[in-house]
């Protein structure tokens, strides 16, 4: 263990940076030597990173370092170089990058501290970082894998044919009487119609008969009053018809005409009838 730790610490020794680089005759004062990117590509490349973990992975992969044995000092140094570049560059340096910088610095300092021999091994300061890097890397890889799956509209195409005509079929809704009654109950409650005495008592057969009479009588000719009564219906039926006639008169839906006292009574519709609406 100690030898390995020493190796790690050995790398910690800050590498001596060479003097400023000369690129095409111009001195490059800001560009660290271990960034393998030309300045004009910087923006593009930084933009391509999906955050600090992605950037760290890039730095590690680039140097063929085993992710389980990251030379923290070296990687931290390179990471900070990028951060410096980003600070000066056009891109906004997000909080995540700064947070990672702090984390790296902390790991680095902990690595430098001599550790007593009895400290448990899981105290490797890099453990959490290594876990996060691997965790991110597997999903980064998964994303790439998903992108290589055959995609509809890109690699595979749905085969289809012309559908037959009349394809929009919608059966009419079904209703049962109970629903209608419930609806009616509600509207009555709303209109407080239950309190209206006359409606409460009105037999529905009168309403029905009113409708029947209205379809029988005409506006332009007279119907014999007695013809509206069907004797076979008996007393109750006759009363219903009479009540219906009275109600129709009250609502000005029919007119009764009697040319002479005790003469025949005729019924004439007071409603305009448009047969085209009926059809």
């Amino acid at each position: 263990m100690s030898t390995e730790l020493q190796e790690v610490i050995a790398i910690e020794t800050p590498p001596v940076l060479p003097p400023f680089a000369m690129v095409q005759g111009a001195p490059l004062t800001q560009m660290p030597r271990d960034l393998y990117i030309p300045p004009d590509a910087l923006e593009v490349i930084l933009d391509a990173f999906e955050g600090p973990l992605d950037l760290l992975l890039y730095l590690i992969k680039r140097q063929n370092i085993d992710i389980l044995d990251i030379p923290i000092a070296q990687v931290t140094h390179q990471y900070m170089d990028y951060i410096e570049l980003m600070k000066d560059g056009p891109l906004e340096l997000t909080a995540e990058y700064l947070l990672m910088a702090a984390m790296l610095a902390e790991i680095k300092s902990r690595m430098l501290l001599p550790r007593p021999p009895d400290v448990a091994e899981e105290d490797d300061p890099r453990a959490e970082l290594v876990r996060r890097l691997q965790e991110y890397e597997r999903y980064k890889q998964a994303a790439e894998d998903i992108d290589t799956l055959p995609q509809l509209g890109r690699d595979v195409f749905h085969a289809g044919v012309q559908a037959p005509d009349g394809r929009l079929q919608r059966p009419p809704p079904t209703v049962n009487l109970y629903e209608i009654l419930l609806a009616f109950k509600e509207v009555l409650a709303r209109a407080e119609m239950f309190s209206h005495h006359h409606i409460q008592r009105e037999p529905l057969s009168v309403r029905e008969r009113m409708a029947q009479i209205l379809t029988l009588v005409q506006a332009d000719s007279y119907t014999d009053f007695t013809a509206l009564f069907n004797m076979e219906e008996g007393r109750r039926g006759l009363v219903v018809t009479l009540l219906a006639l009275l109600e129709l008169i009250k609502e000005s839906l029919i007119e009764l005409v009697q040319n002479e006292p005790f003469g025949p009574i005729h019924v004439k519709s007071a409603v305009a009838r448009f047969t085209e609406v009926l059809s």
Partner: protein
Amino acid sequence: MNPQQLKNIIEAALLAAGEPLAIEKLLSLFGENPPERAEVRAALDGLAQDYAERGVALTEVGSGFRFQVRQEYAQWVTRLWEERPTRYSRALLETLALIAYRQPITRAEIEDIRGVGVSTHIIKTLHEREWIRVLGHRDVPGKPALYGTTRHFLDHFNLKSLDELPTLAEIRDLDSINIQLDLGEPPPGSGETSHEQQEQEPG
């Protein structure tokens, strides 16, 4: 490219296109090295034969070639788009109830009782179901139609006459009493309109 490949490409293109493809369009799929027009024709003929006994057929229409469902299978295929019956709105049911109980009644009178407008759509739907009819027109300005229910309405709801509709008193106690009517379905547990699918078919 052998004839089988050519036929497969044309088959795939026709099925993927979603619209008829003219021979020119088919030729354009091959870029620099298009097959002969006659070869495409032969491939189309071959395809038409391959599908002679199948569920779809290759046909030529105005703008080119396309596959379409054979008419003899249309009755099954159209069921794909058969939507589940929707439900009528509360407004429609209330309108129908008012017409049933208060006929002859004008739209304005229905609106008066309901306190809100009755859409033309509702009246139209009730007409289309043949549940209501125009009995005449009230002789007031605008000559509004007077609505009533139809024989078909009675048949649909299994009523001999309007008399068989529950009385207002019965309706008021709708939740508590067992209405002596063939309502077609046991009343749902709650007083609210049931949202379950109604199995009852139109009569």
